[in-house]
Every structure is written in C-alpha cells, then in structure tokens.
C-alpha cells in the first residue's frame, strides 16, 4: 500500500480507467457512479453517462445521493421517462457498458442484491434488483466494482438477482440478443476477468502492495490467478486530486443542500 492514496481510491481510479472515452455507460449508484464521473472528469471527457432515472448524457458537478437527484436532470442533455429509458435506451441496444455494484458475487459473476438467507425466510432483506437484471443482459458488457471481502465474494450467491454466467458458467450460451456479460471486476485489492472458456473469475492484476494471500483470504472460493499476473498501475496525482475534490464537493453539497427550515419537518404536507 501507498501513503499517497487509500485502497478505496485505488479501486475507484482503477474502475474509472476501465471506461473508455466516448463509450456509453449505464451507471449504478454508489461506487460505479463515483468511478464513472471520475472517468468523465479525467481521461474520458466524452464518456456518456446514463442513469436509470431517465437522465441521458448527464454531467453532474457533484455525485448524486440517489439515482434521481435533480443535479442529474439539470446537467443532462435531455431527460426521458423511465419506460423510455429501459425500453429504447437500454433494451434498444444503446448502452456499451453497464456499471454495477453488488452485495454478493460468485465465481461466475452472478450478483445478489435481493437477500441473505432463504427467499421466504430472509436473514437480511436487501433492496432488490432495481435496474441491474436487464442492465447486465442488455448492455454490451458489464463492469462490476465492489469492495473485496468474504461477505461479498461468496462460493454461491444466496439468490441470483442478476445473472453473470449462471450457476455453471453457461447461462449466456445460445441466448440470442444478449450482451457479453461481466468482463471486468474491480475491487480494492485487484482486477479480475472471467476466463474466456469457463467464465470463472481469474485475477489478472494485483493492486500495488497487495498479495495473492490477501485476495485468497477475502474470497469465498478458491480464486484463480492468471499465469502472468500484472501489477495494477497506480493512480496519478491528477486523478487523486480530481477524485478528492469531487468527493469534497459532494459532501458539502449533500450536507448543505436543503433549506434550513425544512430539516426538522420530516413530513409536513
């Protein structure tokens, strides 16, 4: 590890670098949103960001707290209805990259954001699928960014909310009109890609200072490593400066965003 940046910053910068300039990205809230906007503010000024609230080609000055913050609409090229967003823009084939987070992920990149435990008797109820199930199948490819831990990287997800390659890696085989699926998973420890044949995740790059052992310990299955294991390039100063400014702007905005006289009203009609 470096004293120049944190593991979280390493993850965000690496995720942001995955997005190429000019590509069209359907952005999930949280880490994907942070990475996508960092990309837009650094190497990919022409990246097109789409949020499921209907905001097309948006350029928020601060990160949204929700998927439908006013900031997203105000800085968008145009805003369409939510049915149009999912029908014309996502299902219609105009999205290059779907950028997702998750609560659980398995070796075949299946994602669970529905619940922990049994569906009818959940131990923990999570928010559910939202846009992810169709983003993952209708976007040309999918990037996933999530913090690395055995809580998240599990042997078998409790529920396949959003398909990666299915329980056995073959879920996309022979399915017409479906995207390539996950092509990259970026964590705070490493970068992984699905094996071209078997589709199970392979670590292709370790972040500086991270060991194979750390990745193994944070992964709930026997994770594979590429024969030639790269070292992920470090963030440069410009990226770190811009990321930190973005986050500081965001914190200031969301702390002071509402009128003082509304903060303790909570419900008055």
């Amino acid at each position, binding site marked *: 590890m470096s004293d120049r940046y944190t593991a979280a910053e390493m993850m965000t910068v690496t995720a942001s670098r995955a997005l190429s300039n000019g590509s069209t990205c359907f952005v999930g809230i949280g880490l994907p949103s942070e990475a996508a906007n960092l990309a837009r503010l650094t190497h990919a000024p022409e990246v097109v960001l789409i949020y499921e609230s*209907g905001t097309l080609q948006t350029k928020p000055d601060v990160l949204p707290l929700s998927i439908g913050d006013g900031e997203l609409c105000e800085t968008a090229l145009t805003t369409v209805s939510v049915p149009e967003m*999912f029908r014309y823009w996502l299902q219609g084939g105009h999205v290059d990259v779907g950028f997702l987070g998750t609560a659980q992920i398995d070796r075949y990149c299946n994602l669970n954001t529905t619940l922990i435990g049994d569906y009818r008797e959940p131990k923990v109820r999570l928010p559910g699928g939202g846009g992810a*199930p169709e983003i993952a199948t209708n976007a040309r490819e999918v990037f996933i960014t999530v913090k690395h831990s055995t809580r998240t990287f599990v042997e078998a997800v409790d529920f*396949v909310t959003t398909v990666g390659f299915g329980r056995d890696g073959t879920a996309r085989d022979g399915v017409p009109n479906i995207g390539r699926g996950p092509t990259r998973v970026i964590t705070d420890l490493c970068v992984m890609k699905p094996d071209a044949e078997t589709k199970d995740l392979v670590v292709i790059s370790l972040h500086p200072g991270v060991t194979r052992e750390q990745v193994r310990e944070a992964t709930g299955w026997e994770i594979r490593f590429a024969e030639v294991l790269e070292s992920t390039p470090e963030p440069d100063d410009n990226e770190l400066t811009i990321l930190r400014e973005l986050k500081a702007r965001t914190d200031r905005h969301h702390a002071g*965003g509402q009128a003082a006289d*509304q903060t303790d009203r*909570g419900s008055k009609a």
Partner: protein
Amino acid sequence: MAEFLSLHDAVARYVEDGATLAMEGFTHLIPFAAGHEVIRQRKRDLTLIRMTPDLLYDQMIGAGCAKRLIFSWGGNPGVGSLHRLRDAVEKGYPYPVEIFEHSHAAMACAFEAGAAGLPLAVLRGYVGSDLPKVNSQIKFIECPFSGERLAAVPSIRPDVGIVHAQRADRRGNVLVEGIVGVQKEVVLAAGRSIVTVEEVVDDLAAGPNACVIPAWAIDAISVTKHGAYPSYAHGYYPRDNAFYKAWDAIARDRDAFDVWLQDNVFTQGDDT
C-alpha cells in the same frame, strides 16, 4: 374530468380499503403528503405498487396500511434499508406484507402497458435471474416471428394512481417536468387518479412536447404545497437529504416510528 378537491376529500373519495394503489415519483415528485393522508384516514389492506418503495411506503407499511407490495427496488437511496418494510416482511409487524418482486425494466414496461390498456408487457428481461422462481407473475412467451423467448409480466392497472407534479392550470391540466419517471403512465393506467400539485397557475408555460397530462385524464387535483417533501420538486425545492439520513434511526425502532407518526402525520393534515 379533473375536479379540484382537498387532499382529504380526494383520498376519502377514491382510496378504498383493499384497493390496489400505485403512488409514483422516481426519486422526484414523490407524493408524500398524499401518502400521509392515506395513513391518517387509516386505510387498510392496500396492495401498494411502486418501483422504489422508499420512505413513503416504509411509512405507510409501518402505519399498517398494506397487505401486499409490488416493487422492484426497496431501499433508502444512498442510506440503507427500509426498516419498517423489513419488519413487516421479516416479522409480520404490524401486519404481514406479501411481496411481488420485479426488476425496474419489468415494472417500467408494466406501467407502460397499463397506460396502453394492454393486459401484459413484453420485454427482453429476467434472463438467468432467480426472480421468476419466486414471483409467479413473471412468465415467458415465444415470439411468433423470431422464436425468441421473451419475458411477460401483467400490466399494472391499479384501482387508484397518485402522483405529485409541479403545477396545474385552472382547468386542471397538469405539467410534470424534469425527472418524469412513470408519472404519466400511472395516471393513465389507473382506474382513478389523484394528482397533487405545488400550485395552480394561469398558464402552464409548457413547450410543445412537454409532459402535460390533460384534465380529462385526471379525477382529482389537490393543491398541496411541498406535497413531495422530503423528496423534491424540480424548480420548487430541493431534496432534504438530511431527513433521508435521519429516517434510518427513526424507522429502526418501532417506538421511535410511532412517535414520529403521531407527531408528523396523525396530528397534521387539513381535515375538512
């Protein structure tokens, strides 16, 4: 034809116990004031439909209005879980709530199909997902032209649809602007519709292709200033992010929630 009614009267007239009720607003223009009126009038056994049952439905479920929930993403955006929803689903408190869970794409298409008067929506969806295993509403059909297997879900045609919007003109035509979500679809898909608005104006000042819902497609309009608070109304007031964060602690605790409900819902409202 839209009739201007007090919020109390609109809810009293159109929302019956046991009704299917869709209250929409995709992070924007969420009809909180109307939801609180539903709570005040102690409506029961509602089937609540909403893509993102956030704080509004957490409050209504916690207050005991719901017996069933149809949704696609249930959380406090950017904050965490909906504790009242979880308490109902996981512990049956105050009542058990049955859930029918979809993806956003499916619900958006189901609202579109409902507005289009169709019984079903067809989409390229749910491929490889476990959701069809736990939601009997999700089926698959074969395209008679291409042979492709496509998902089908029932359209959403609720008994009552409620949305918030920026403004109405004096005849009851309504302008929705900004993140328009499924506001138009809900109004058109519902048997009866209530629209709460920030204000009434002489002229909507809408562009030629703006999202305007004509008066003759709406049943009741209730002028309800700040009717979307603590969500926001583009051009009127911002989202109260602090309240969304504060909600987590209120909703975690049954007693804290009851106190909040008493202070902020039951003792409020303009009963007429």
